[in-house]
């Protein structure tokens, strides 16, 4: 039977949190019948809980009429250690590969990149021990991973020269889990090249990163990398003169490169064959204008993309930094960006009031629907005492719903800090952005913080969610939870 860590996420067809005007009965959202995940899951009726480690059926209960469900297995620890952070996941050749940073990346420190495979369907770990992707001297950190035909490309930022970051990568065999091409240079010029990401076009990988340009600013560049670990471009391809923290995704032969630029989440479409930029997304290259941090991308396999990003402010006794928020932004197959011109109002009040369509989560000013920065009496807290910290991720369920995961923290009494981080999940309709999967906590909380989720779709409506877990007084873990829409 289901253990204490196994749970069912009930989803009402008209779900959504209180105050969400696009969700819930009587709201302006579409009827439940047009919400694909809800409809599909309603038809299934039952929740199927998979025990991740054993793959056995561990729980069933009848679904109530009109209720859809997403089943979640028990968390599986892929690794345990003093400092394990930033898991990233990709799916290919029937397996998920989760890669993470292990160790501390500072002066006289050592951080390495490790990875482990998880079997699709059963969500069973396939490797008896994680594979060391790179254990070079100094620090290797912030990994990203992309799935090719039967390999994975793992990329990371590398400080082995003790002066600046380079971008390096390794090829992991999907079927054996072994390193097929060890540790090779992708971008190793002077100055910083950092925060890489990668995607597979069907013929080669595209690896992107932020690199120091000009005297004191970053831009976004990339190269193509073959499945054999060969860098195919002698000179990096420039995607943005100004930008940082890029993400890249491929869908139906279309390549989206996205990045943060000041207050803006920006992007361009690139040619899948050459890797070269084709045109900016939207009219001005923007996906959204106020929520630029930690962009994560997913695609529907038809050339349409979803970007989710965060506004990573912290609480403040007077509310000056504004609300923390997680917003989603679509990029359609034709390159249009429906959320590029959304106006979020003074101090993002229209985000707080959820008067704009693309809010995944937001901090609120008490029970009000506006943000009252600097108001007499100051900021007393949010309605539920929680604050969206960000670190969002997104995946496509194959049936019309984008599935979002992100981090929320409990606001501490000083109204400056957060703790007891949790990972939450929400589903939103691809066409209307209506809530199809009501917000639910998946992991974390008091005594066992969970942060930095990564989520990737596997076959037939299943997902793997990976995250870092920090039990109080215990060692950190990289954990994974299998999710399945029924």
């Amino acid at each position: 039977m289901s253990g204490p860590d196994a749970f069912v996420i009930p989803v009402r067809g008209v779900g959504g949190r209180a105050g969400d005007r696009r969700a819930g009965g009587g709201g302006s959202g579409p009827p439940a019948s047009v919400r694909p995940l809800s409809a599909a899951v309603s038809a299934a009726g039952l929740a199927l809980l998979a025990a991740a480690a054993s793959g056995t059926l561990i729980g069933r209960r009848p679904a109530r009429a009109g209720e859809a469900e997403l089943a979640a297995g028990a968390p599986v620890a892929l690794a345990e250690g003093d400092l394990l952070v930033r898991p990233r996941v990709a799916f290919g050749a029937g397996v998920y590969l989760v890669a993470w940073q292990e160790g501390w990346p500072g002066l006289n420190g050592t951080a390495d990149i490790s990875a482990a495979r998880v079997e699709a369907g059963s969500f069973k770990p396939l490797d008896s021990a994680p594979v060391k992707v790179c254990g070079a001297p100094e620090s290797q950190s912030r990994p990203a991973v992309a799935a090719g035909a039967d390999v994975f490309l793992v990329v990371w930022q590398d400080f082995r020269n003790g002066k600046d970051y380079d971008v390096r990568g390794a090829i992991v065999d999907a079927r054996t889990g072994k390193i097929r091409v060890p540790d090779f240079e992708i971008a190793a010029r002077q100055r910083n090249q950092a925060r890489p990401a990668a995607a597979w076009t069907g013929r080669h990988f595209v690896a992107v990163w932020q690199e120091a340009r000009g005297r004191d600013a970053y831009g976004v560049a990339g190269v193509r990398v073959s499945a054999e670990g060969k860098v195919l471009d002698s000179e990096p391809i420039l995607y943005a003169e100004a930008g940082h923290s890029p993400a890249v995704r491929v869908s139906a032969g279309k390549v989206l490169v996205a990045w943060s630029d000041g207050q803006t989440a920006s992007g361009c479409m690139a040619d899948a064959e050459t890797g070269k930029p084709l045109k900016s997304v939207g009219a001005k290259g923007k996906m959204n204008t106020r929520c630029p941090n930690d962009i994560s991308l997913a695609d529907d396999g038809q050339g349409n993309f979803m970007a989710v990003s965060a506004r990573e402010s912290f609480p403040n006794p007077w509310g000056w930094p504004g609300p923390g928020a997680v917003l989603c932004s679509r990029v359609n197959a034709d390159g249009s960006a429906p959320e590029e011109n959304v106006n979020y109002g003074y101090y993002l009040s229209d985000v707080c009031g959820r008067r704009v369509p693309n809010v995944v989560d937001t901090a609120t000013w008490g029970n009000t629907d506006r943000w009252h920065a600097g108001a007499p009496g100051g900021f007393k807290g949010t309605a539920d005492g929680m604050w969206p910290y960000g670190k969002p991720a997104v995946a496509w369920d194959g049936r019309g719903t984008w599935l979002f995961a992100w981090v929320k923290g409990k606001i501490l009494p000083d109204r400056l800090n957060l703790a007891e981080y949790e990972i939450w999940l929400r589903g939103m309709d691809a066409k209307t952005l209506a809530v199809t999967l009501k917000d639910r906590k998946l992991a974390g909380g008091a005594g066992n913080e969970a942060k930095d989720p990564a989520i990737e779709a596997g076959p037939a409506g299943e997902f793997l969610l990976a995250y870092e877990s920090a039990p109080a007084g215990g060692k950190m873990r990289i954990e994974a939870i299998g999710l399945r829409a029924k």
Partner: protein
Amino acid sequence: MGRKISPAAGGRPSLRAVLAGMAAATVAAAAAGIGGAAETQIRYVDDIDQWRAEIFAGAANAGGQLEGPALEAGFSHAGSLCFVPSGEAYFATEGVIFHISKEGTFRFFAGIPGTYGCADGPVEKATLGRQISICPDGKDGFYIGDRSNRCIRRLRRGDGGKWLVETVAGDPAKPEWKGKPADGAGKEAVFKYLHSNVIADAQGVAYIMDNNFLRRVSPEGRVETLNPQGGPGKPDDGPLESAKFNLIMGGGMCFGADGCIYVADRWNHCIRKVDLAAKQVTVAVGPGVGFRDGPEKNCGFHDSPGYIVYDPYRKRFNTNGVDDWGLRVWQNGEMRTIAGGNTRNERCMEEPAKDSRLGWCGVYAVHPLPPHEIYFWSGHGWTNRIGRLYRPSDRKGVEGR
């Protein structure tokens, strides 16, 4: 001396023209757009035309914490910066301490990037709060004023020379004090709100403003409130024991050459002098409002003074108001402006210092090696950067500059 110029004198060219060639100028300009009705009165330092502002560190758009060369380093909060005699620097910001080599390479030195907490131990396992300040502890280590955790931490070398973090005083598990501070040793002591920065003397005794109380922390972690009969109130001169301050998010402090502590008493709009030997507290500068230079008893800060650093090489203090649009110098009984000051500055950061647009700025520290540049932070185009002031003539013949 300068002269007053009406803001109605017009746009930037005429203003600049009038100022050109003047050793010191007084500019009267309504602080339009800044929110203050108080008259602005600027008197630049005599050698203002020699001072330059430049970016020392921080990329404009690093996107969070990054190691690397100074101009490519990433950080997103002003934090706290201190130097050691060798010229190396330590920068405390958002849960980590960066080490900055003499060559300007930023490396994580303590704390876990992206993780906040109060775990003691080796620097690679220890966690720090988000809002932290740092200063040398006089014993080859550092104190960390950990506002987020309401405690004083220390960085020191442990067995084998490995650096570790330990909590000296305070207990994050305890709620903040109410009414009066709780003194005692180590975890017995309770803090409430640690202001801008911790300082320490050569004997390793630390001082910090906690709410409106001046707390002293011995190297062994015993905490004593020096103004137990104090609290919030007006800046009356008198005994230290009953001295009152009016601090909300301010309280920068430093030692002067006289061994006294100088506190930016933000909402009393003045600089206070705490004479530890005589146990007396007096008003040293102000009180006064508005960005007004002039005699120390007839000058002011727009909003309120937030930070103060003593420059032992030039024998003067660097200070400023929290949302002043310039950096100030206090010397020989006068307040002067050394950078910024003109709200019409908007072109470029790296300019002659008086032409650089500053705002919501503050001074960190003075470099211990010649040419003793003055390090600062600021809003506007300086966000996510560390700036410094220097005179080109001082760099001549100085290696590495």
